[in-house]
Structure formats: structure tokens, C-alpha cells
């Protein structure tokens, strides 16, 4: 069983590497055939037009695409994504400026979504089809249908502009450096309250819906009836039998969700001025910073693959029949 598991993971890793290779190759060519170029940001009345051509040459963009691609592959083997045109730093260094925040933000968001999704679904499931259950269902549907930017702007209006208790933008206060360690942690937390709420309200509804429906389905299974008839306590039925069986689909959703969040939460990052991967990627796309676009896409691809793999492994740990599915 253990050998099978290791082999499945290895096969999945090989296929993932191939997917990543095709992803960045496809992106490499797509970026170069798409209109525009990185030199366009040098259009200015204060700059000489010939500077644009010189900049193109300095980025080796005047060379045939296949020559650029072979140089790119050689560098990639050495783990070098090149130098960002915008930031004039190695792509990996630029990404490392933004990645820590994105990791924290995504993890916090997923935890909040899971916790509140669980809580609401348990409240619902305690009295299925009761008034509370129907209210929570309708309320979460309403939350799900609110676009992120509307929620963000509304929360800023209420909590920043009107009540004035939470900051509207940024990750820290202007006097952050003067605070002690505990103060700095609190400062980060206070700045993340509105962004986390904005990002999570849709997710909580999704998690709630998945979990509530699964729990309902499991509770209605004959084996639960059998356990009840055998005198097993309701608490034990829920914790030992219902929840483990209801978790599988949720793990898949969490894997996908976490992967996407780690790639960046663009709208939330822009509204709240947060330094995340989403903003970095979109700015790189708009300014045609080719090496940075490829680097960000690679990292996003890695996250999506890794989180999905982790979800599959976790599912297989719970249900051994699923080991075969890991190899993809």
C-alpha cells in the first residue's frame, strides 16, 4: 500500500512538472505574439523616441523568438527566470517581496472561510429545514451574490469613512515602525480585518453550502440510523462518523480555493492597497514585463498543483481507496 502511494505521488509530480513546462512555454510565445511591448512605457515627451528601440535591444527582444526561447530555457534550467523589466531585479527577488504577504493572506482567508462555513453549517444541520436553517441558507446566498468590489467599497464606506474604526487601505499604519512588537502585530491584524471579510464572504457561503449538503446527505444514510438505533450518542455519531464522511468533497474545494488565493486576490488587493501577487501579476501583464509574467504564472501554477496534490493526498489518507486517483 505504501509503495503504491509513493509511486502515485511520483507520477503526479512528473505530470505536474510537464504541465508547468508547457504552461510557461505557451506563455512565453503568447506574450511575444500579443500586441504591445515593454518599451511602450518609454513613450514620453521628455524621452527620445529612439530610446524605445534601444530598450528593446537591451531586453534582447530584437532577436528571433526562438533564440530568445532557447536562452530562456538555458536560464530556467539554472533556476533563473531572468530580470524583471520594471523592477530591474531578478524575477524571483521581486516575487519574494510579494509572496510572504500572499501566503499569510491566503491562509488566513481559507481558515476563516472554513471556520465560519463549518459553524454555519452545524447551526443549520442541527435543525434541518427549520427557520434558522432557511435563514442561513438565504443569507449565505445573498453573501455569495455580492461582488467582491461592492463588498469592499461598502465595508470601507461604513467602517472607515462613517464609523472610522478600521483603516481603508494598506497593510500598516504610518507610525508602524514606532510600535512595539505586539503593537505591530495588532496593527497588521487591524489592517487585515476588512480585506479578509471582503475576500471571505463569498467563500464562507460556498463552504457552508458544500458542508451543509454533505452533512445532510450523510445524516440521512442508513448507517447513521443504524448507529442511532444501537444507542451511539449523537455527539459520537457526528464527530466520528458524519464529519469524516462529509469532509472529502470539502478538501477538494479547499485545495482549489487555496491554490487560487495563493495566486493572488486581485480585486481585494487593489481596493485595499495590499502588496499581493494578484496586483504584481496584473501590473506585469499591463506593462508587458514578460519575465515577471512568466515567473508569476509559474508560481501560481506551482501553488495550484501543490495544493491540489495535498488535497488528494489528504483525501487518500482518510479513504485509502482514493490512492489511485493521486497519480492523476
Amino acid at each position: 500500500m505504501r509503495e503504491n502511494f509513493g509511486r502515485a505521488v511520483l507520477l503526479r509530480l512528473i505530470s505536474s512538472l510537464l504541465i508547468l513546462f508547457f504552461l510557461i512555454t505557451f506563455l512565453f510565445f503568447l506574450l511575444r505574439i500579443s500586441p504591445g511591448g515593454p518599451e511602450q512605457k518609454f513613450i514620453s515627451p521628455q524621452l527620445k523616441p529612439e530610446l524605445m528601440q534601444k530598450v528593446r535591444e537591451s531586453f534582447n527582444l530584437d532577436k528571433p523568438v526562438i533564440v530568445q526561447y532557447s536562452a530562456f530555457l538555458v536560464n530556467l534550467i539554472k533556476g533563473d527566470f531572468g530580470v524583471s523589466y520594471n523592477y530591474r531585479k531578478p524575477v524571483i527577488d521581486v516575487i519574494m517581496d510579494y509572496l510572504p504577504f500572499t501566503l499569510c493572506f491566503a491562509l488566513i482567508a481559507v481558515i476563516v472561510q472554513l471556520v465560519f462555513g463549518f459553524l454555519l453549517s452545524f447551526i443549520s444541520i442541527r435543525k434541518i429545514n427549520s427557520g434558522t436553517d432557511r435563514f442561513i441558507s438565504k443569507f449565505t446566498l445573498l453573501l455569495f451574490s455580492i461582488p467582491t468590489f461592492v463588498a469592499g467599497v461598502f465595508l470601507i464606506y461604513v467602517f472607515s469613512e462613517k464609523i472610522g474604526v478600521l483603516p481603508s487601505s494598506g497593510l500598516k499604519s504610518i507610525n508602524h515602525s514606532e510600535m512595539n512588537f505586539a503593537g505591530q502585530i495588532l496593527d497588521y491584524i487591524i489592517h487585515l480585518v476588512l480585506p479578509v471579510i471582503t475576500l471571505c464572504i463569498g467563500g464562507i457561503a460556498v463552504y457552508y453550502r458544500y458542508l451543509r449538503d454533505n452533512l445532510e446527505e450523510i445524516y440521512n444514510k442508513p448507517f447513521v440510523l443504524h448507529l442511532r438505533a444501537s444507542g451511539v450518542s449523537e455527539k459520537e455519531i457526528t464527530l466520528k462518523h458524519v464529519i469524516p464522511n462529509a469532509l472529502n468533497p470539502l478538501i477538494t474545494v479547499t485545495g482549489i480555493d487555496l491554490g487560487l488565493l495563493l495566486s493572488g486576490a486581485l480585486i481585494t488587493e487593489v481596493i485595499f492597497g495590499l502588496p499581493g501577487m494578484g496586483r504584481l501579476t496584473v501590473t506585469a501583464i499591463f506593462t508587458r514585463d514578460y519575465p515577471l509574467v512568466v515567473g508569476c504564472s509559474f508560481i501560481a501554477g506551482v501553488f495550484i498543483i501543490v495544493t491540489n496534490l495535498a488535497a488528494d493526498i489528504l483525501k487518500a489518507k482518510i479513504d485509502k481507496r482514493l490512492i489511485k486517483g493521486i497519480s492523476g
Partner: protein
Amino acid sequence: MKVKHFYILIFLSSMFFFSSCQKSSNTSDFIVIGIAQDVESINPLFAFSVDEGSICDLLYLGMIQHGWDDEKGEITSQPLLAREWTWSRDTSSVTINLRDDVKWTDGVKLTAEDVVYSFDIFSDPVVNSKFSGSFQKFYTDSSEHIIADKSFEMLTPYKLKINFRPHTHPNVFNIDIPILPKHIFEKIQRKDVPTADINFKPVSNGPYKLAGWDKNQSITLIADPGSFLYHKGIIGKIMFRIIPDYNSRLTQLKKGEIDLTELIKPEDAPSLKNSENIVIVPVKGREYEYAGWNNIDPENFNKQHKFIPNKFFGSAKVRQALSYAINKKEILEEYLHNYGQLSVGPVSPIFTKAVNPDLQPYPYNPDKARQLLNEAGWKDTDNDGILEKNRTEFSFDLYIPGGNPLRNYSATVIKNNLKNIGISVNIQTMELNTFLDNLFSKKFDAWIASWYIAIPIDLKMMWYSDFKNTPLNFQSYSNAQVDSILDNIEKSPREKELYQLYKQFQQILHNEEPVTFLYWIDDITAHNKRITKIDINPLGVIHHCWNWELKD
């Protein structure tokens, strides 16, 4: 129940605690400036954007500082790192006496060697600096790299002479570059300069030095007590806070969390005006919007490189008709709330001496437009409401870049106005980079765009007929007389003659109306009233902010 109340109380008190943590910027020696995006470089060699330029200007001084004379509508020049400068009689050389009390932030003294080195590195083609290609008046090699031995004579450590190529008519702008520390940069290979560490840890000579750069969050500068520009009232700390969302910037300005922000939308100006603590400063703009008409046929140009007049816009009469047909005033009043003024040509009204006062914008006059189109042979022969000529209907695509509400509004007004005189317009929105790509390859018949006029005025890059060397002549305008005027302007004639040439240029352009000039847009800045001695002019907002002071 009591426990619940306890938790609610804890929650509310923590909220108040948190809110008290958010200090507003209202401290006596500290201001916060809101900007939309982070800068990419604080090395003046690569300070391409406006914000990068503003921050670099505070870190790296040049020999000369420029001001703006509103009455004369021209730039004034005063000494900065230079104590004085003297031009030779034939302006072929200038002798500069430098201040001897300027130190880099690492304590090393600034000397004439730094000046020579700065010109050398700025002109080095390997570096591709922002002034690349701008040193033709110096002695340069074939790659336009300055030949230092020929161009500079170091007379003492604080005195140097700059020699220019004969008959090139240099002026103060040719010697105005930020000065870089030779002792730091000479340790770095030129090819490595763009990615060197110095780009993030500057050794500077300005009134402010870098205190911190929190990526995509803020850049903090602190006043340098060792600078000769330091004075008792100088603002001790300036933070540039990155706030990408425009509405968040406004909210923070109103709440006093930031003290200044630029690029205020005209529709927000009235509400800001009513705020107790905020001052609105509109400055006559250097940016004009225009409806571009390709004077040549794009298909023939791109396929066979032939210059054949455009079937719609090749005739000056038609272009004039279009300018008569467009109600520019409506856009100015309705969308820009009169924060701008109608445009006659590409010379901004801020240049009071250069602008031609005899010219008036084409008034909104659909009847005159119809008459001119009729004279040009465009008639509605089949009574379908659209004009025709040689079996071609007057119908074209008008391209605008996406994400710009002003252009959407202008395009809709133009479409309706032109429909009124029998011209069919299809508005096409395009992603900005794709839009620019098509402009450069002259693929459009018509578009709406804007352009900034450089200070000092540079018209050649957009109106000269050598399309290969002036790729920004998107409208493919070609006129030998205009070329000759632009060549003469480059020879730096005497002031009176120079302004005469500008006026002639505008007259010709007005007669031929190669594009429809729409309006100049005011730059609106809003700042907290506690900032005093602030001088906002067409050169910028933040420059010279070492002169700003704060009310007690």
C-alpha cells in the same frame, strides 16, 4: 447572556483601541503624500515615471533648479549645486562654479569629478538612461556617448568648463542633469548598473535621504541635516504612501490620513472644496486631448509604404469641417466641469509668449461643417443620411483605449455630432498596449488620444515629417514649411525670433488642422491646509518641497 455582553464589550473596546492606533498624519513634522502606484526605481538614471522623477529630484540635485514664471509663461533658472555659471560669448562653452559645501550621504564631498562622471554615465549607451540620445550638443562618439576629455575641462575640484560642439546653440537645459556619486558608481560595471544594489540603497546629495522603502506600501524620506538646503522649518519626514484605489485616496485625504494627492477628477473637486481642511489647486495643464485623423492612407502605407492621402482625412477642408462639427465646449463643460480650456493647437496656453493670441478654436458650427464637406465633394447622393464621394460612404472606426471614461464620453459626443452632419462613426475600444501598437504602425484612420507638451517646448517629435525618426507623428502630418520652422527652432534663435517661429507654426497647423485639437486638461491637486509655502506650477507639485512648511 452576561457572557455575550462581555464579549461584545471586548469587541467594541478593541475596535476603539485599534482605531486609536491609526494615527492620522497630523504630526508637526511629518506629511504623507498619496500616490497610485509604487515606483520602480529611485535611481535618476531610470526615473522614467512622474513619481519616480519627483522622488529622485529630492534625493539627487542637479546644478540648476528651475522655477516657473506665470506672467512670462516661461521657465526661470537659479543656481542649485552650482554657485554660478558663465557662458562664453558664442555659447560654445560654459564655466561652472560649484558649491564646495555639498556632501553625499556617506560623507564624501561632491566635486566637479562627480559632474563629469554623471554626464558620462547618463550618455553611456550601455546604461540606456532616461536622457539617452539627448547629448548631441556635446562632443560624442558614434554611439552618442560623451567624449569626456573633449567636452569637459576640470579647472579646480569645484570649477569646470563644458565645451559644446560648434554651432549647436546649447542652453541651461543641456547642463541640467541629476548629479551622481562617482565614488559609488565607478565600482559597478556599466552593464550591471540597471540591476545594481545602489538602485535601492541610494547615496544621495539632496535635502532628503531615503529612510525606508516598503514595497508597494510606502517610501519614506527624511530631511538630511547635512544638506545645504536644510533649514529650521523644513518638513522632517515625507512619506509617499501607495494607495492604488482612487476613492481610498480621497477618503484618506478627507480624514487627514494623507496630506496631498494629485490627479483629482474634476467631478470630485466641488466636494473637496467644501472640506474645511483641504485646498484645491488646479494648474493649467500641459496635457491636451485630440481627435486624431490619419492624413495618409494606412493600408497603402503599411502594405507598400506609399504616402497616399487618406480618403477621408487627406483634405484640410474635411479636417476643418470635422473640427467645426465637434462640440468641444460641451465635453469641457459637462465632463471636465470647466477644469480645462479649449485647445487651438499643440502649444499650451501656459507658454504665454509662445502661444499665438490671434488664433481661436474652431467654433461649434455644423452648418459651416456641412458647407466645407460639400465643397470637398462629400454629398448625400442616395439620401440615406450618410455622405458619399466616389461611391465611398463617409463611415469610419474611431479607436479609443479602454478604461478611460473621459475618452468614452468624448467619443460618444463626437459620434453624435458627426452623425448630425452625415458622417457615420463606429467607436472601437482597445486595450491600451494594443492601441499604442496600432498607433505606432499607423493602422488607424481615426482615434482619440492625448499628449503632454514637454518643457522646454519640443514640437519636432510629433509634427516633423521624417516619420522614421519621429515615430510619434501618428497623424502622418507632413508640411515642408513646418519642417523648416521646426529646424530653425532647434537652432535656438534669439527670443523674439523664437516666439515668432512658434506662432507661425501654430498658424499653419491651425489652417491645416491635421487633427482636431479638443481641450487642455487642468492638473488638479488637493492638499491639507496645514502645508504652507507650497508652489504648484506646470513643472510639478512635489519638486522644491524642501521649501514647504507646516502650520503649528
